[in-house]
């Protein structure tokens, strides 16, 4: 199987400091969910922003076999690489409907209407509030709007940055239920950055562990059942050696 997205030697450096991401390489297959796990400051969000074309980065990015590293965010969205940022970044003063239109900005009008119907069916929580200003939605609804907005572009790869951030556990479960549903229905691959271990392990096919901007390990979904693997996950999560985690 050819990879949907191949990331080779991706590095991100802000200013003159040490690189935030250093020579990170991994691949994402079609319909695969790849999670990036690491402590705060490990470089997860920098990787996501670099893949979305929002921060300058070096390295090679091949999407469906074609180089995309020189493309702007707009061009990447058109190709099907869509970023759902941490903190949701919905436009509060726009209505739910307008936020969704924004997500499908580059899509043909008829297709946009189809997708909007699909998204609203997927997220009934926001379907009843389409004319409401987005800032008036609850945190969970805003997250659903952010994911829905991402889906409006018709992505092949969704870059999902901390979808559980700031949400109550019940809502986290609901958001991940929806994500599992989207995954089962559609032809969509996901790169997931998430702090919630349980949810990550539920959704991801594989997990890359990050520390100080480097990938320090990888586990396949099936390997995560062993105690040692779980310990590795916890270490990566805490960004510390195992005896600190105990």
């Amino acid at each position, binding site marked *: 199987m050819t990879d949907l997205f191949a990331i080779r030697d991706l590095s991100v450096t802000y200013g003159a400091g040490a690189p935030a991401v250093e020579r990170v390489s991994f691949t994402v297959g079609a319909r695969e969910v790849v999670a990036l796990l690491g402590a705060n400051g490990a470089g997860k969000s920098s990787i996501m922003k670099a893949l*979305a074309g*929002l921060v300058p980065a070096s390295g090679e990015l091949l999407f469906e076999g074609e180089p995309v590293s020189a493309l702007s*965010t*707009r061009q*990447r*969205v*058109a190709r099907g690489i*869509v*970023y*759902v*940022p941490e903190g949701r*970044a*919905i*436009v*509060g*003063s*726009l209505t739910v409907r*307008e936020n969704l*239109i*924004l*997500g499908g*900005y*580059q899509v043909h009008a008829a297709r946009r209407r189809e997708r909007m119907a699909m998204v609203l069916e997927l997220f009934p929580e926001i379907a009843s509030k389409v004319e409401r*200003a987005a800032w008036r939605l609850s945190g969970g609804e805003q997250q659903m709007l952010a994911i829905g*907005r991402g889906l409006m*572009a018709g992505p092949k790869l969704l870059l999902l940055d901390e979808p559980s951030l700031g949400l109550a556990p019940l809502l986290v479960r609901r958001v991940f239920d929806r994500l599992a549903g989207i995954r089962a229905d559609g032809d969509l691959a996901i790169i997931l950055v998430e702090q919630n271990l349980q949810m990550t392990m539920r959704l991801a096919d594989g997990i890359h562990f990050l520390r100080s901007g480097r990938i320090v390990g990888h586990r396949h979904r099936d390997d995560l059942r062993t105690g040692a693997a779980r310990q590795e996950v916890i270490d990566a999560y805490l960004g510390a050696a195992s005896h600190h985690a105990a």
Partner: protein
Amino acid sequence: MTQPSAVAVLLSDLFPLVWSGLITGCLYALGAMGLVMIFKCSKVVNFSHGNVAGLAAFLVYGLSSGVLLQLSWGMAVGVTLVAIVAVAVLTYALIAPLVFASDLTATIATLGIGLIAQGVTLLVFGADIVALDLPVPPFRATVLGLRITGYDLTVLAVALVTIGALFFVIDHTKLGIAFRAMSDNPFAAEVCGLSLKAVHIFAWTVAAVLGVVGALLIVPTTFLSVTTVAVFMLQAFAAAVVGGFTSLPGALIGGVLIGVLMNLFTYYVSPEYSSTFLLCIILVALNIFPNGVLAAAGGGSRV
């Protein structure tokens, strides 16, 4: 008996003063809305707005009077609009690298562009005062003691149509959604795949057109010199400040308020201190309602 009649005389002037203030206020509003559109989108206060609009008025004069060409008035306006839109795009192209680096640098750069526009005007048309009329229907009527002219009605109609069209585009079109998203959350707009530059250029060109419309309508009330339109834009600037600088409806209300207040002050107090009065309005507005009259009234606005 003399005292009440003096009051009556003062008050009898009030209504016409408010009316004519309202008319000029609509024009200040056009100028102010251009400033606000650019500020909302690019976070730049465009100090070249007045001088570029002044250059436009001179272009219309030059193209229709025989100084440059002998076109009809409508043709001259058409050519000028194309030229000014080109100037707006060029201006944005010049300062775009600065917009993304520093709002303040970009704002200061607009001062330079304003000086260039003024220099070009002086170079091509000289420092003389010229007359530029507006082809308005020769209409005159008196309603409830108020004299209404064809000019008044033309200004009102043009302002209403222009502002109405602008609000329609911003409220009901995809481009309007992009503009509002840009001004509220540029990061989100970028993530959604919007071209930030395209939205900026939309704001700059619309602002330039609003400036030209405002300039062409204000000039017939006075005369046209190198500084006429720049001074007019100073009032538009005050209108934008009164409106909070980030609200288009605020700019509209600010324009009308400034128009009426300036008229009343000039008539009842002193025409000599009108600039001082304008600065006082700006100071009072910034101190009492820094977020604009609409926010102060508890309204706020989406655009």
